[in-house]
């Protein structure tokens, strides 16, 4: 196996105000797993969108199997043997697996034949999947398998995978890697996009590291440490978080046998959730999003009141209190969805500071807004959390995801909460900003507040949480101290491999 399957030279794509890709070049050989590594905004997505024909490059050339390759649209890319599994799935929840696969095909075979082929492929690659199941009932890992099988049916020469493990449990990651290695052994080239360094070190045969739209390094990931890779990615030293100086005190928050019906048709119900939270403690709640994370945050923030006696703060039953009453008592929250939930896209940062800040900050007088005080509060958040923006008059939607996230977390932290609940606090945030957010949460706990961090990022939870529990299909496992917890144990708490234990590893 010599020569390259995909060869890229000088690929450039500029958007108004930003050069997403600047003279990017690399090669992928058949049968190799090649990593594309970089922070959010480094240009990984734009690059693969060009390879998949979704975006047209401004300059540069691509070659596939030695021939010039200029896909005008994804259909042309697929015809040339390039397939892609997106980070966000495009599946219809109300249809079954086979129907979803058929929808993505140019000339779908009869449903019975298709179901047969899905079964054959899923058996061959160790990805068990029943073609007749409704997608709405599947776990995130199983949904990803639908997308992978959809690609494999095309018999691709190059398979692009965009952040495939962000929604998987450790066991599911193992199974996925097993499949990918098998595919590579058969000669398929795999372009693997991720910012999870350990994964890349164990899976990939080569890596191209992007920063600010440019290739900054190419290396063999196995020969580098995770720290070296991170520093290449960020382009600087990496600050380790400091979790010293905390001791846990009395119990502040108690959740007792909390049940909640699903908020949407395919949404999970919360089932008998119980835990306690002490002052000065960080509780990490892991699990794949969509397993009750949003629902848990909504019941704790007061957006979805729960049955009497299920949520108590300082021994007082607060189950039927709304968000503002809970803020008054010191229970604050930062939801996952930044635009439209944690912040209003079209309103300025000053107005977004008012959104949750009026109860604990003197931003109103007799119900009248004190815009000066609100602006000063917004400026305090911007300064304290290094939010990159021209000023508090800027609309929330004009900020990048990471900057808005810093603003949202900062807005709650600076209100001196006694209990703070955050959902996916560093999702889509670059490494430096993520480290700052984690440190802020730790500092808050060091001052005696209790913090709940709901996150899909297990490394993050291991880094900052004192105790860990997993939320899976609406059930919360018993919290356990993070010290001494192995990835194996965490995986089992997360529900293992979602019915895949029988698969050969």
């Amino acid at each position, binding site marked *: 196996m010599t020569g390259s399957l995909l060869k890229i030279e000088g690929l450039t794509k500029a958007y108004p105000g930003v050069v997403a890709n600047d003279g990017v070049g690399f090669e992928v050989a058949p049968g190799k797993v090649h990593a594309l590594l970089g922070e959010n905004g480094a240009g990984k997505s734009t690059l693969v969108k060009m390879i998949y024909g979704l975006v*047209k490059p401004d300059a540069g050339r691509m070659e596939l199997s030695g021939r010039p390759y200029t896909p005008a649209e994804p259909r042309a890319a697929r015809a040339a043997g390039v397939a892609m599994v997106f980070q966000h799935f495009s599946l219809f929840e109300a249809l079954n697996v086979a129907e979803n696969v058929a929808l993505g095909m140019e000339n779908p075979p009869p449903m019975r034949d298709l179901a047969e082929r899905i079964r054959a492929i899923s058996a061959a690659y160790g990805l068990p999947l029943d073609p007749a199941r409704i997608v709405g009932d599947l776990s995130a890992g199983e949904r990803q398998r639908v997308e992978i099988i959809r690609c494999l049916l095309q018999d691709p020469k190059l398979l692009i995978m965009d952040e495939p493990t962000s929604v998987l449990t450790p066991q599911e990651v193992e199974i996925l890697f097993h499949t990918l290695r098998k595919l590579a052994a058969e000669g398929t080239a795999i372009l693997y996009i991720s910012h999870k360094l350990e994964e890349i070190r164990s899976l990939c045969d080569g890596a191209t590291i992007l920063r600010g739209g440019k290739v900054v390094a190419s290396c063999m990931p196995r020969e580098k440490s995770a720290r070296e890779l991170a520093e290449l990615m960020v382009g600087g030293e990496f600050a380790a978080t400091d979790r010293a100086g905390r001791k846990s005190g009395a119990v502040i928050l108690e959740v007792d046998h909390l049940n909640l019906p699903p908020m949407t048709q395919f949404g999970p119900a919360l089932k008998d959730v119980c835990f306690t939270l002490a002052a000065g403690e960080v509780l990490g709640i892991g699990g794949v999003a969509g397993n009750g994370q949003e629902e848990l945050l909504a019941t704790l923030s007061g957006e979805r009141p729960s049955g009497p006696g299920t949520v108590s703060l300082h021994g007082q039953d607060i189950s039927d209190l709304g968000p503002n*009453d809970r803020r008054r008592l010191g229970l604050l929250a930062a939801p996952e969805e930044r635009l439209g939930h944690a912040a209003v896209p079209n309103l300025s940062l000053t107005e977004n500071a008012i959104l949750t800040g009026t109860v604990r900050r003197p931003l109103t007088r007799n119900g009248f807004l004190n815009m000066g005080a609100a602006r000063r509060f917004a400026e305090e958040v911007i300064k304290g959390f290094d939010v990159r923006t021209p000023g508090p008059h800027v609309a929330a*939607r004009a900020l990048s995801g990471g900057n808005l996230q810093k603003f949202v977390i900062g807005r709650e932290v600076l209100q001196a909460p006694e209990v703070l609940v955050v959902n996916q606090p560093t999702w889509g945030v670059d490494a430096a900003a993520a480290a700052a957010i984690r440190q802020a949460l730790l500092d808050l706990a060091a001052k005696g507040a209790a913090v709940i961090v709901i996150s899909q990022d297990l490394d993050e939870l291991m880094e900052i949480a004192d105790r860990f529990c997993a939320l899976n299909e609406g059930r919360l496992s018993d919290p356990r101290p993070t010290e001494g917890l192995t990835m194996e144990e965490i995986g089992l708490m997360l529900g293992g491999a979602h019915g895949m234990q029988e698969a050969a590893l």
Partner: protein
Amino acid sequence: MITLVKRPMPSRFWSFTTPVLAVIATMIAGGVLFAILGKDPVAAIKVIFYDPLFGPNAAYFRGQLLVKAGPLILIAAGLAVGFRAGIWNIGAEGQYIIGALAGASVALAAFPAESHWLFPAMVVAGALGGWIWGMIPAVLRVLFGTSEILVSLMLVYVAQSFLAWAAFGPLKNPEGYGFPGSRNLQQYPSAHNPELIAGTGMHWGVVAAFVAVIATYVLMSRHIAGFRIRVAGEAPRAARFAGVLPAKLVMFCLGLSGALAGLAGMFEVAGPSGQITDSFNAGYGFTAIIVAFLGRLNAIGILLAGLLMALTYIGGDMAQLMLGLPTAAIQVFQGMLLFFLLGFDLLTQYRLRVGKGSK
């Protein structure tokens, strides 16, 4: 090729400029329409926009301007609050009718007694009547999830039937020689809503409209309740996160806009109109929707838009009279105004880029 690029922030410049552009575009397109109908477009535009203010009979028409603009502004000020929250009260016309019926009923029940308390009581009754008519779609939406758009609209027709029944039945003038319609409140001093300054058209309803403009301006831009209303319209989930209860919001917005529309109806029946007839309502409740959007759902904008709309009403009447333009042409002309406004509104959120667009 022309492409639209979303602005990172809404443009302040264009949000002030688009209403002016819309008026100019309406004049041009309207002129074309009038020319097709065989009228001199320049003369028609002059009759509509210029003569009522500065023409030979302007002294009379200027007074009419406030008489027409008053109810439009009063109703639109209330509607805009709800529209900002994404709550669509389309039935202000019905609330206007019920407010007028309630106010007139109080007056006619007290006739012929004279008292200083009668007019204030009519004001309260008018507001209450409109409020009740607005609360029907609100309560139905909160309890059963019905669409307030449809329910409030359909209640207009219920109110109209109610009006016809009252005009021919219980409120009919017993000394009216069998003609339909109530006693004329202009001849009942305690109930009359008179012109306060001769020749200006200023009556209590216009005063109420100005008060409503100031009050809703302060509410929406300075008060936490108005802030929450805006958040609810922009991002409902964020509003819930900020502690807004959707049910309360629906009741507040429909109740407020209903009460203001009811007030407008009451001031009209006690003043310029004088009596309840089966054709008492003149479409103010529907035109106010246009006024609310023409004013960009902003209180000050609504004040200006109401005056402009009143001008097209008066000028339109004159154009009918003097140039023989059909009523429908005037209505099309008013519709164009809203059409162009919404069209140009795109420019506040997007910028146009001419040239080779990237996909």
